[in-house]
């Protein structure tokens, strides 16, 4: 391949943040028609490299070029004009605006000075059709849930007909069927000569979508290699810097105890007569496709939403639906699926973000005890291996996966008996995933109940003692113990009515 094929390039790039060198002397180039995967642990520097190439950040030293133009001093708009379209790791849509408006954000079609609504809607429909997704372009983005929003972002980037398409964990909240669509779209645009940079923590997905992979570790490029010939084991070893531990076969231990939390015949917008039992001492997985009611189930159980009808019992007693504060006080905890909007308080330190779930634990006679806060936070930062410069570092500056771990740490701090985890491994690297699974297992062994919602059926099948499959807002199947097999769960989750 000739050098004229190089679409984007970084030469000897270094980028520092206070306390961290996010990129250190990085050389990177991507060519027309190539799909390049970026692999690395949480905090390795993948998103930073992407931000440099999209003009959102600037190198401290070295050079970044897109189609031969240096990005020094250019803003995201200028870089977009060079043909770069980026889907950032964190969703960046305006929730109050419709899908169509978001797709054309800032570049709304106009005729004679006024917005051309007809053209906008038509263009939006076309953009959604292009990625093979059926979403109402008139509905507000905020009503879509994470998966829908992610698809809208991808549609928006693809619709710009870029020469370089950058996708930072575009599929982190998508389930198998939608991931398939995204992969097809990426392959199609690559065949048309677009260069693609693709970040994901899912190896099987990388294998289907990428030609080459660049492994990043602690801000350095370890190696760039063809995906087809490299083994997963080899790649993971490069990411971690050590050989990965062999995964011990997990024994499943479905609990025989009476349910600590149960729901009967829940009906709401998305729920349609849902029954579920959550037992202490086990990990209960909830599987289902996009829109099957997984998040809604958790929200109803924890009292964030009030179902139209149905009954919820906690430790045998009926509870008032929608009594969120009371449920927290009685030992429930929930990590939301959208960590930036509902999870983190970005300007606050990691330490305070963790202890916020129970400030009494770190107070003495009503006064916060700095020492206690530091100790509590430190312990959890170590326990979950959260990568942060200091405990007091504003959490908004942590890499995505590390933010996710801190949100989980919050409920470990609160010591909740019933943990409802909505996509807790979203955007988390292989090693950290294992750490999170281990924590879930520890909690279950400790007699707590863990409810695990994930769009990755593989991990559910791997970790759970029992799995409930949702479809159309109802529990349609339950598998426990040795009945749990990946293929079976998968088939049940995507089966039609």
């Amino acid at each position, binding site marked *: 391949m000739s050098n004229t094929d190089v679409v984007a390039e970084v030469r000897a790039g270094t980028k520092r943040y*206070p*306390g*961290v*060198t996010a990129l250190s002397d990085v*050389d990177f180039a991507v060519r027309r028609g190539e799909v390049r995967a970026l692999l690395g642990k949480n905090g390795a520097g993948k998103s930073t490299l992407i931000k440099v190439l999209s003009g959102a950040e600037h190198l401290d030293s070295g050079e970044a070029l897109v189609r031969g133009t240096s990005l020094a001093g250019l803003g995201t708009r200028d870089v977009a004009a060079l043909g770069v379209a980026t889907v950032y790791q964190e969703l960046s849509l305006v929730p109050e605006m419709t899908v169509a408006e978001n797709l054309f954000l800032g570049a709304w079609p106009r005729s004679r000075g006024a917005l051309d609504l007809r053209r906008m809607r038509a263009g939006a429909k076309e953009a959604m059709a292009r990625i093979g997704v059926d979403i109402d372009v008139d509905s507000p983005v905020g009503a879509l849930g994470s998966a829908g929003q992610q698809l809208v972002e991808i549609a928006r980037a693809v619709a710009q007909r870029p020469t370089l398409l950058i996708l930072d964990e575009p599929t982190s909240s998508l389930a198998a069927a939608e991931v398939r669509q995204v992969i097809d779209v990426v392959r199609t645009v690559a065949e048309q000569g677009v260069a693609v940079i693709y970040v994901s923590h899912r190896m099987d997905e990388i294998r289907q979508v990428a030609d080459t992979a660049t492994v990043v570790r602690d801000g350095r*490029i370890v190696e760039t290699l063809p995906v087809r010939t490299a083994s997963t084991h080899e790649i993971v070893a490069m990411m971690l810097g050590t050989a990965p531990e062999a995964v011990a076969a997990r024994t499943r231990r479905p609990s025989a105890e009476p349910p600590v939390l149960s729901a009967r015949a829940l009906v709401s917008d998305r729920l349609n007569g849902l029954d579920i039992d959550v037992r202490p001492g086990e990990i209960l997985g909830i599987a289902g496709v996009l829109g099957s009611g997984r998040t809604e189930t958790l929200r109803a159980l924890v009292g964030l939403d009030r179902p139209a009808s149905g009954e919820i019992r906690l430790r045998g007693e009926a509870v008032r639906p929608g009594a969120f504060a009371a449920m927290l006080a009685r030992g429930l905890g929930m990590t939301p699926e959208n960590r930036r909007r509902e999870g983190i*308080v970005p*300007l606050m330190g990691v330490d305070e973000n963790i202890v916020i779930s129970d400030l009494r634990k770190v107070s003495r006679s009503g006064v916060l005890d700095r020492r206690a806060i530091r100790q509590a936070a430190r312990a959890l930062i170590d326990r979950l291996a959260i990568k942060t410069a*200091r405990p007091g570092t504003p959490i908004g*500056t942590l890499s995505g996966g590390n933010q996710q771990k801190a949100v989980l740490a919050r409920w470990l701090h609160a010591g909740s008996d019933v943990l409802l985890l909505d996509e807790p491994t979203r955007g988390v690297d292989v090693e950290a995933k294992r750490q999170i699974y281990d924590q879930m297992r520890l909690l279950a062994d400790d007699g707590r109940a863990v409810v695990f919602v994930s769009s990755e059926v593989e991990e559910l099948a791997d970790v759970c003692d029992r799995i409930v499959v949702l479809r159309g807002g109802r529990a349609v199947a339950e598998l426990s113990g040795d009945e749990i097999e990946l293929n079976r769960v998968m088939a049940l989750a995507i089966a039609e009515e």
Partner: protein
Amino acid sequence: MSTTTPTGPPAAKADARGGRLGRNTQRLNEIGLIGAIVVLFVVLSATAPGFLSVTNQLAILRDAATIGVVAWAMTLVIVAGEIDISIGPAVAFSSVLLAKATGEWHIPFALAVLVCLAVGLLLGAGAGFLRARWGIPSFVATLGLWSALRGLAQYMTDGLPVPLDANGFLDVLAGSILGIPTPAIIMAVVFVVFLFVANRTAYGRSVFAVGGNAEAARLAGINVSRIRVILFATTGLLAAVSGLLLAARLGSGNGGASVGLEFDVIAAVVIGGTSLAGGKGSLLGTLLGVAFITVIGNGLVLLGVNAFFQDVVRGVIIVGAVLINVLLSKRNGARSA
């Protein structure tokens, strides 16, 4: 291009400045303000006759208290992403209430004071409740109070001052303790209380969390509504305290007093580096902001600047100060964020 060299130092033991980006900006802003206040002092002592005199310095302290007592509470309101613009009318109304209660309504003085404080607190809590329960933007809820309280105060007094009978308590409020003006002492005490509350209590930290991300705070189990009600109850209460100080100073209840006070208070908070977007701010900054605004006001009077033109100068200086603040944080942010 294959390298498997050992990787750089782990982030955990990196550079002790690590990540306190917001704090750095805050520090810069505070240092800048201190610098500005020093410059003001130097310039004014050279140009304004009597600026450095003890009497004038004590007068500055007394003036500072008019803004300061409420500004501490306002800082938390703004940190929480809210705003309270009802301060001026609330202060005037409280002074009128005291004069009416002790005079016309013959309520014993001590009880009248308690009534004033309670009414202030409840009015604020009411605005907070509108915000918390029905999601009425706090700007609108307090705009309602702003209009209604000014109107009520003027209506109750026909727009005339209502004289207050002097008594020992009022004399102390209007006077000095050990040579320091009483309002300044109250201001200092309230400041220390707020400094403590903001940094060392669950309530204070919850305010920052709510301002930083209300939804996340709610999901973490913070009672966001309760926090919002308390926030406005405190500004209401402290506005009432200010009203008592005003009444003591003027010897009357005055429905037309404290016009535009809310803007001085908000300006002091914002100059101090507290972000109107919420989630970020410092009481120390506000303290400096109060000092800055008060010294400018005092200087303009001493320099004999036309009273109307004083407002123009102050407006320009306030916007200028905030602009510098924003530029500073941008530059700092661009370098390290």
